[in-house]
């Protein structure tokens, strides 16, 4: 978040955070001006845990999101990756203000919406739309597709020229469905088609920002690509900014210009696509990338890191750096002091990392694999001996 002001004349929408070499990888595709659309600072969300009989006392908190900063520029896609329980979905819900942040600030187009009331939010709600993960649960089974897609227009009092029905038919065509299906019900569609209906609904109010929470993870492999392509087409042609939340690293890389890696309610690393995937600095990013399975039998040049155990509970997260309990570089400092999210020497502009002892910026195989899992290490040692 170093530079607040961007010159509107900046081409390609490359923000201050996009490094020069990333510009080559991301050719001109976004017509916007690199203006801040969404700015999140120090956002926190604690869900209270109540305990006790009769009188429910607050006994603790689930620290789902614990102080994160990021921004999304106009027309830009920010990908958010992390494992379950890292707070990425909560972040999506906070940004759309389906949840109210416990602390921090969310500003949309310069306007503070952190604690805005329903009335104040109404005009903004039409500009921030959401696409949900489960296409079976996110569409009302008792309403026709036409009603589902025109509902946001109705609620926001939008009357497009030619009427809402015409607009809905156009939208159905945009997302690759037959406009004749206007009067059908969701159960008549397959999962991929339902997700397209969800996209059409989000597009109906001409949003400027779409929060897509795992939009393809419930779909079959051959259908995922259809929906990813559709979203990408929407993003490029309509210049809509995306907060793309997913756990699949390859899909996030394919879709987003910038990527934030979350771990236990914190952003541990954020940067443009090239620097995150080719020159990661945070050990967790390294572990995550090395664990992503690639459909390539010759994929031997990548480093191999196998962590031990699971993500700790967000109710009582580790002190200092939250990754330290699973990190191979952890020292006393990591437990005492929380590392700030800063730009490290050697990282490209806008590539921020929260680590006291960052890794080398490369993902090529190391001389020795890092195997922290004791069972795995033991089995491999045994296998090495027999060889």
């Amino acid at each position, binding site marked *: 978040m170093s530079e607040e002001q961007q010159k509107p004349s900046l081409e390609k929408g490359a923000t201050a955070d996009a490094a020069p070499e990333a510009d080559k*990888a*991301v*050719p001109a*595709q976004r017509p916007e001006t690199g203006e801040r659309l969404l700015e999140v600072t120090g956002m926190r969300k604690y869900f209270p845990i109540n305990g006790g009989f009769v009188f429910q006392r607050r006994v603790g908190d689930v620290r789902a999101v614990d102080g994160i900063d990021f921004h999304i520029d106009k027309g830009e896609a920010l990908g958010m990756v992390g*494992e*379950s329980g890292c707070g990425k979905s909560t972040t999506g819900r906070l940004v759309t203000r389906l949840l109210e942040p416990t602390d921090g600030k969310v500003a949309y187009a310069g306007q503070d919406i952190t604690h805005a009331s329903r009335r104040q939010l109404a005009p903004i709600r039409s500009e921030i739309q959401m696409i949900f993960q489960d296409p079976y649960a996110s569409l009302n089974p008792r309403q026709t597709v036409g009603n589902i897609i025109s509902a946001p227009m109705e609620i926001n009092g939008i009357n497009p020229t030619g009427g809402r029905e015409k607009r809905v038919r156009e939208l159905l065509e945009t997302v690759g469905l037959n406009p004749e299906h206007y009067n059908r019900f969701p159960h008549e569609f*397959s999962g*991929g*088609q339902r997700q397209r209906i969800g996209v059409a609904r989000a597009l109906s109010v001409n949003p400027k920002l779409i929060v897509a929470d795992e939009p393809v993870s419930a779909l*079959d*492999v*051959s*259908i*995922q*690509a*259809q929906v*990813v*392509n559709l979203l*990408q087409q929407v993003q490029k042609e309509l210049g809509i900014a995306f907060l793309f939340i997913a*756990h699949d*690293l*390859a*899909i996030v*890389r*394919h879709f987003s210009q910038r990527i934030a890696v979350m771990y236990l309610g914190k952003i541990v690393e954020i940067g443009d*696509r090239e620097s995150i*995937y080719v020159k990661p600095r945070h050990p967790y990013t390294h*572990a*995550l*990338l*090395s*664990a*992503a*399975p*690639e*459909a*390539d*039998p*010759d*994929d031997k040049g990548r480093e191999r890191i*196998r*962590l*031990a*155990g*699971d*993500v700790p509970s967000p109710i009582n997260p580790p002190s200092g750096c939250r990754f330290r309990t699973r990190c191979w570089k952890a020292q006393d400092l990591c437990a005492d002091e929380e590392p700030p999210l800063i730009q490290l020497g050697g990282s490209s502009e806008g590539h921020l990392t929260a680590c006291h002892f960052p890794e080398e910026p490369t993902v090529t195989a190391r001389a020795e694999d890092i195997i922290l*899992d*004791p*069972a*795995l290490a033991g*089995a*491999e040692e*045994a*296998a090495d001996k027999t060889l």
Partner: protein
Amino acid sequence: MTTVTKPDPAPKDPVSTDPFLSVRDLYVRFATEDGTVKAVDGLSFDLERGETLGIVGESGSGKSVTNLAILGLHNPRNTTIAGEIMLDGQELTGASNRTLERLRGNKMAMIFQDSLTALSPYYTVGRQIAEPFMKHTGASKREGRARAIEMLARVGIPQPQTRVDDFPHQFSGGMRQRAMIALALVCDPELVIADEPTTALDVTVQAQILDLLKDLQQETGTSIILITHDLGVIANTADKVVVMYAGRAVERGTTREILKAPEHPYAWGLLSSIPRLTADVDVPLSPIPGTPPSLLNPPSGCPFHPRCAFVEKVGGDRCSTERPQLPDGRGSACHLTTEQKRDIFIEQIQPRLR
């Protein structure tokens, strides 16, 4: 089967050419209100000892049903099974429940996808692991518990002596999946069927579990059938692959052959629709058009023909009338000639994969 130790898997004649598991022309049909679902339609494959076979397919392709049929876990009331399943010289399709009970958990075992529903919430993890061991080997409770602790330690559960008395809900997702692996391996089975064993897990935990499964296989020489929709998981773990579509095997080969030189248009579609960590991000993905067919009324001829881009290359209406056969060994069930497949792959498909 109340002998204390299991017979050594070695006594089988080593020069015998019969594969360890052989599935021939398997048909599984379910009678439903809407008609007959042809869940598996003429499937054949072989599995050797110590080998891992990956079965890839989308939801509804019949991959899970095949394995329920091998284990005899289908509902006999509405299921008809035809064909032959030979496990180590023993026919399973017509086997009695008693026979299957003796085999299940002992000679063949299963790892399920969702460990929270597969493990009973009512019994401790240790008891669930010890139970099949006690049943199949006649071991005492004390021996069973000791075995459970040993297994938990082997799959990497910290403090197995105390965790053995925990209930499944006290375990995290990754630990539960480890416990399920321990449960499957407790009787040293010769065949393990893993149905999407890591789909519900996070990436870093998935990598741990897959590697662990692979290492344990090397130690014990178990054969594994790994069912998954994720080609990345296949690349890391399987030796051979069967690609399934609409209840049929459409292509068969080694992992390298399937991932590097696939022959069937469906396999091409699958490979070019997944994004890769190193691919060019400006090239859009090439999805397979349409949706998987309903198995109540699968397409005639080749089941993939309504979604296939190469129907014209075959010419006539062969694709929609004549069912292509899958040759034994390496091959694909497609009417395109070998030269056509090679040319299309090199000219059109390969450039998309990198």
